[in-house]
């Protein structure tokens, strides 16, 4: 397989397969999770200020009192790389072009220099968080293969995309093909790993908030 065939495969059949598996997995898991249902709480609902699903959705985006000091890397690094990823994926011009090509929607993009800078900051945050995970005995003990694997699967598309636009190491087209391939691996892995939190996050926060609000506890 030469570089053109490789790129053609990643743009064509590879993308088809990855998006197919992604959609299949996401719909399957969302339907499965949300049709499970929960037993109705028959107790009389209590009321407390700040106790509701919506409150919890927002509250859990902020660190609980004191936690920011205890593990600053997890919180600050976590914020940086999540926001960074969102900026790169949804505001990078080539990504918007891709989405426009696939579904016809488009919106304004940010300058590519800014996206490049964001990618560097995002990667730095991810590397610091990985180092922290390795260095802290408790975090290391709690880490499973899935944690290391999903870190790599998330990191690679950022790295290859940045290297492709900066023309590092490999010719642009080869790096582009690797970037597309790594993003496709991410699409395939996402529905079946902890990365699915991108879809379930707010739902489960709402659920937890709701259950506890019924008991009059703001969580």
């Amino acid at each position, binding site marked *: 397989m*030469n*570089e*053109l*065939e490789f*790129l*053609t495969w990643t*743009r*064509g*059949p590879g*993308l*088809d*397969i990855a*998006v*197919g*598996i*992604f*959609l*299949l*997995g*996401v*719909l*399957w*898991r*969302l*339907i*499965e999770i949300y*049709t*499970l249902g929960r037993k109705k709480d028959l107790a009389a609902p209590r009321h407390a200020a700040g106790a509701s699903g919506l409150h919890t959705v927002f509250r859990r985006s902020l660190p609980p009192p004191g936690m920011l000091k205890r593990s600053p890397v997890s919180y600050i690094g976590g914020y940086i790389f999540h926001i960074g990823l969102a900026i790169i994926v949804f505001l990078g011009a*080539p990504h918007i*072009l*891709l989405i426009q*090509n*696939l579904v016809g929607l488009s919106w304004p993009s940010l300058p*590519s220099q800014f996206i490049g800078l964001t990618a560097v900051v995002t990667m730095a945050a991810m590397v610091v968080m990985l180092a922290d995970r390795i260095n802290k005995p408790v975090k290391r003990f709690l880490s499973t293969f899935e944690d290391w694997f999903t870190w790599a699967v998330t990191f690679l598309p950022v790295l290859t995309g940045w290297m492709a636009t900066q023309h590092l190491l490999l*010719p*642009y*087209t080869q790096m*582009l093909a690797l970037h597309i391939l790594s993003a496709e691996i991410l699409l395939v892995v996402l529905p079946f790993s902890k990365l699915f939190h991108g879809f379930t996050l707010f739902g489960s926060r709402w659920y937890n908030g709701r259950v506890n609000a019924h008991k009059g506890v703001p969580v």
Partner: protein
Amino acid sequence: MQGPLIDTLARRGVTRRTFLKYCATLASMMALPPTAGRAMAEAMAAARRPSVIWLPFQECTGCTESITRSHSPTIEGMIFDMISLDYQETLMAAAGHQAEEALHAAMQDNAGKYLLIVDGSIPLGQDGAYSCIGGRSNVDILKEAAQGAAAVIAVGSCASFGGIPKANPNPTGAVSVSDLVKDKPIVNIPGCPPIPVVMTGVLAHYLTFGSLPELDDKGRPKSFFGETIHDRCYRRPFYDQGKFAKTFDDEGARQGWCLFELGCKGPVTHNACATVKWNGGTSWPVESGHGCLGCSEPDFWDGGGFYKALSAPADPLKFAAAAAVVGAGAGVAVSVANRVKKSAAKATHETTTLADLEK
């Protein structure tokens, strides 16, 4: 035509200095040291004419046209006088059995020494019946002719990589020369059509040094196919500045900006168009405002559309809807199974009393 090439050229009004100048430029294009131009001129001027057999298979004669009619009268064309072209269906006067006899005579007289030029792909479907000459299939003819050849030169993308006959769904089962001939040195000169000077360069190299030029991993002469169109494109600075034509008639197109977003395959295409150009150096596709099609790369017909940017998805998602339906189906099926399990559990549920616990 007998005697050294220089006399032949002189008869046609090509002076020695013109020839020297041509060889200097040819050596420069082939990235040979500057002194090679002189060596080339001397060797070629006095060369003994090698026998060349040219076999046309599944082809359109565009390659022959490119070389023989490129820009008359070219030295490229005249270089053909320095070879003894013993069989070339398009150009030879003989026809029918006479032509076949010429072919066999050349193969016998020069066994082990002749150069075999092939243009066109070779169909293998239906035992090769899709393309026959004189009642024999192309694959038979190629195998026989390759046996006695010193080297094989595959001219054009069809002979080099299968080309358009091999394009999906490849109805004739077309293959390239290198798919069939394994025990001979093969030079691929792809392009649709190939650049004439590449052909001359390979012949000149063979006559001067008695060997084939250095080849890349796809069997192409490195000196002509070593760099991509993109690397040497005069519009490259626009690419680096992020200035792209979005349509063929917008402001960007008029300003001569990069054609990447209009599907230019320059970044993945190895060829010399950007430096050698076409029609005697007049222009080349990108200069005339159209992106590179990638014609010198394998399977360029199936490269995902000529007008789609290399970074855009090649095909609209084919399985997406089906996958979504299957996914939703799987989700519903699993949730039904879960419900059944739950209600089964509920049905078998027995109330535990205090008495049970005390047992």
